[in-house]
């Protein structure tokens, strides 16, 4: 058997799966988004832009996603950076690996159970009860944008810490020594040496978190109580409750297109700033 045939055989199962479960389904979504809703719940093939013209009907979902996703990304960045810095620069090398693993592991555990934990903590008998005990009454936390934001930060913090850690860890520590030997105070070393050199990690972290947040469903569903909903929640509603496949497909296409546009603009911006993006595997 020639190497060529061997490679084809090795790629055959992967190719078939990608074709049947990625290319064909995504094409169906694209085709349906131009179709018309069938009375029975399916889609009548057509070529109409009607579904896209109707997108503003779900404006609130898009607005919530496009405000809470960037805010959540930024908040996660602000909390993650000092931790990543500590792990890369300050932490005892003996403990570094285990500390890092402790950050990454929660990300791979069930986001459902982890968000559920916050229903528990933010619900009437959790934090609000604690606040009442110290004299602050009537605080409502669950089913607010704040609760969703906490869930987002909690869910995606590990994904932000890891790439920043990688770029800070890679940084040549002699540069920091040189900076302080030349008389720069620590804050100046940080602003002029450390921070610029960690931009690739920040860029990767923000992109990963932002992309995942755009398609989020569970966190708003669990902690937003139907009041704070994302495009993901609209999609579940359209496909599983009202069974409007044509319109739902248009919403899904719009989501992916917005995602692609934002990511492209973001990468262009970074390239213009001359920053390299670090591709790291969060595993």
């Amino acid at each position, binding site marked *: 058997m020639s190497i060529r045939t061997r490679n084809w055989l090795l790629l055959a199962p992967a190719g078939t799966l990608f074709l049947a*479960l990625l290319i064909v389904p995504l094409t169906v979504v694209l085709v349906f988004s131009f179709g018309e809703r069938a009375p029975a719940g399916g889609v009548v093939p057509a070529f109409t832009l009607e579904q896209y013209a109707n997108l503003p009907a779900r404006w609130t979902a898009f607005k919530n996603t496009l405000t809470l996703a960037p805010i959540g990304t930024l908040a996660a960045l602000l909390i993650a950076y000092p931790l990543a810095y500590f792990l890369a620069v300050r932490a005892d090398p003996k403990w570094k690996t285990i500390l890092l693993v402790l950050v990454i592991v929660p990300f791979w555990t069930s986001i459902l159970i982890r968000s559920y934990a916050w229903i528990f903590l933010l619900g009437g008998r959790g934090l609000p009860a604690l606040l009442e005990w110290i004299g602050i009454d009537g605080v409502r936390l669950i089913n607010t944008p704040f609760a969703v934001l906490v869930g987002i930060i909690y869910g995606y913090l590990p994904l932000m810490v890891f790439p920043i850690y990688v770029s800070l860890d890679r940084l040549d520590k002699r540069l920091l020594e040189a900076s302080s030997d030349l008389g720069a105070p620590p804050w100046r070393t940080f602003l002029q040496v450390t921070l610029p050199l960690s931009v690739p990690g920040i860029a990767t972290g923000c992109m990963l978190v932002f992309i995942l947040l755009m398609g989020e469903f569970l966190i708003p569903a669990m902690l937003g109580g139907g009041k704070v909903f994302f495009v993901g929640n609209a999609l579940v509603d359209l496909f599983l409750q009202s069974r409007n496949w044509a319109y739902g497909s248009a919403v899904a296409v719009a989501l992916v297109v917005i995602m692609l546009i934002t990511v492209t603009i973001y990468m262009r911006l970074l390239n213009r700033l001359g920053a390299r993006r670090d591709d790291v595997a969060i595993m």
Partner: protein
Amino acid sequence: MRFYALSVYLFLYIPIGVIALFSFNAGRNASQLQGLSTKWYGVALSNPFVMDALKTSLTVALTAAFLATAFGTMAAVALQGIHGPVRKAFDLLIYVAVMIPGIVIGIATLIGLVTVFDQLNPLLATIWPGGATPPKLQMGMGSLIAAHTMFLMALVIIIVRARLAGMDRALTEASSDLYATPFGTFRQVTLPLIFPAVLAGFLLSFTFSFDDFIIAFFVAGSETTLPVYVFSSIRRGVTPEINAIGTMVLAVSLILLFAAQILLRRGARPTR
């Protein structure tokens, strides 16, 4: 700085700890601790709905992780020696599979498969021999396994490829110079070197599939996986039983993940 790090770790682990603590609640009120007992574990494990969902989840996760690891490793090895349009096409597909939100994958698989099945079922009925009732293609465990396998395979390819890229090419060249067959080289040189990554890929795939809610929510048809069961129970109210199930789910993935991390870190050391 130390204090800050400690508080972030507390933020990450307190919620998990609270769930675990309350799962040992002796009382029936979910949010008031009334003594410790393991009785809710007993309740959860003797609930037939929970056990059914657990069985479905385990079957799906094991099958999907196994298939994804096998197909993904095969593809990663083949892609290593390929350049040109085929390689570019696969790179693009892997990228798309990982980048597209899980919810869109779920939706696309649902309407894509339902549409294809609607076409195939009448066809099957006409060509099926001898008047026997033909099998009806429908959404269920099979479609869920297929959807998970596709996504996880992309993940395995990425993990195994990273390991292959760090491998010293001279080793495989030496092996073939010494007259090993390509398969012999793979079995005796490549596979042992990439094995930690392959195993880690399997463990990550298993945990991902076991924990996945969103794809299963759309694609599982009338089957219920454990996360789907937990999600619908939470909507009916918080009970100590859910805390017990949640703790077990977290424990399973925590154990597998620590194993995967150790393997990946051990595997990441230079091989030269």
